[in-house]
């Protein structure tokens, strides 16, 4: 009802979102749904979600919303297809195989492509693709949850967690803050947020930067000379980066790191 739709209409939308099976998918015993939830009627913003319910006893397992970062990256591409989802994609996109350690063994997994402009999520106001930021992303994600839980009322009051990585180190706590505030203001709170789980999370500009340069030095990825040059020329308390700082950082990445995958420094990079 919160989304201005009757209960029957919501249930019908849920049925319409049911995914019978994906192309090249092995048979599974859990249900999955995917589709759009409008988060701003006037501007035409709609977010795309994919729900893979828990394998076994979905009705009693918690709901976990997974967000990837970027900003601008897709939870379907990373969280669902490379990390915690039940399927992995075969080389060249020819089909799917099962992920033995899928987190849907323990929970109902909700992947959200956020904000509008990411993956299949869209806005009908094209200029908005260049005005995204933390605040609107968190507000739209809250609106998504409110409307989505009208479509799937069985998840109201269910133990609910938000998880994510990287720039979702912003998205996850900011959405949690909105939910806490929304629940406080509501006489009938139904989003039963129990906790958050963040990995390799962008958290604090200053400490993140200091910690990153420290990691590069302690893991022998950069020389003493470069390390000292960065510490000398970079003022991480400021959001602005000086030319000397950029030069020192770029030298490290382009001349001392070598051709590595910075996201996993001991594995071969993708040719």
């Amino acid at each position, binding site marked *: 009802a919160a989304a201005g739709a009757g209960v029957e209409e919501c249930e019908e939308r849920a049925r319409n*979102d049911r*995914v*019978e*099976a*994906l*192309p090249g998918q092995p048979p599974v015993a859990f249900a999955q749904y995917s*589709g*759009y939830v409008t988060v701003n009627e006037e501007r035409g913003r709609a977010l795309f979600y994919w729900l893979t319910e828990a394998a076994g006893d979905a009705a009693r397992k*918690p709901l976990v919303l997974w967000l990837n970062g970027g*900003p*601008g990256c897709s939870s379907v*591409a*990373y969280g669902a*297809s*490379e*990390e*915690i989802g039940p399927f*992995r*994609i075969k*080389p*060249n996109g020819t089909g*799917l195989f099962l992920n*033995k350690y*899928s*987190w849907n*063994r323990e*929970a109902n997994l909700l992947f959200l492509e956020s904000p509008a402009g*990411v*993956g*299949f999520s869209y806005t009908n106001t094209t200029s908005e693709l*260049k005005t*995204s930021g*933390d605040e609107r992303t968190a507000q739209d994600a809250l609106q998504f949850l409110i409307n989505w839980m009208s479509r799937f009322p069985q998840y109201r009051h269910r133990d609910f*967690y938000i998880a994510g*990585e*990287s720039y979702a*180190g*912003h998205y996850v706590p*900011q959405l*949690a*803050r909105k939910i806490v505030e929304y629940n406080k203001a509501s006489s009938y709170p139904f989003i039963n*947020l129990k*906790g*958050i*789980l*963040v*990995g*390799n*999370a962008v*958290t*604090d*500009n*200053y400490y*993140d930067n200091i*910690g*990153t340069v420290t990691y590069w030095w*302690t*893991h022998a990825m950069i020389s003493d000379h470069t390390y000292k040059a960065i510490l000398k020329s970079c003022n991480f308390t400021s959001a602005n980066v000086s030319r000397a700082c950029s030069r020192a950082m770029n030298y490290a990445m382009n001349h001392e790191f070598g051709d590595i995958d*910075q996201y996993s420094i001991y594995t071969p990079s993708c*040719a």
Partner: protein
Amino acid sequence: CTETYAEKYYNRMEVQKAMHANTTGIPYRWTACSDVLIKTWQDSELSMLPIYKMLMKAGLRIWVFSGDTDSVVPVTATRFVISHLGLKTKIRWYPWYSAGQVGGWSEVYEGLTFASVRGAGHEVPLFQPRRAFRMFQAFLAGEPLPKS
């Protein structure tokens, strides 16, 4: 290269049809990351620490983990951040175990649990799926990571 597999799979018409995706004819291909958004991102809060404190006060369970072979948002960054929350330690630093091996190290504070995941990069469940799953089970159960 798994990201390229996704670029192929989710741009297949039959996949988009099965997922009820792209129903409005989005005028660009599906891609794992949007260049436009990342280049024009507007407001970005400098620090999440004040929000962490508010969420702790609200009684939420907060877990922060870090794959220790990531150099983009590395474990040392996360540790600097947590150390500046000034939390009281409940369970002192210890190695946690998964499948008979050290899965990483953990420390439990009043209001927050930290865990490193050994041998994992930025996308922890991609590089160490079993350790990540073991950590997730402990998180949902609200229990410290296993000491053996």
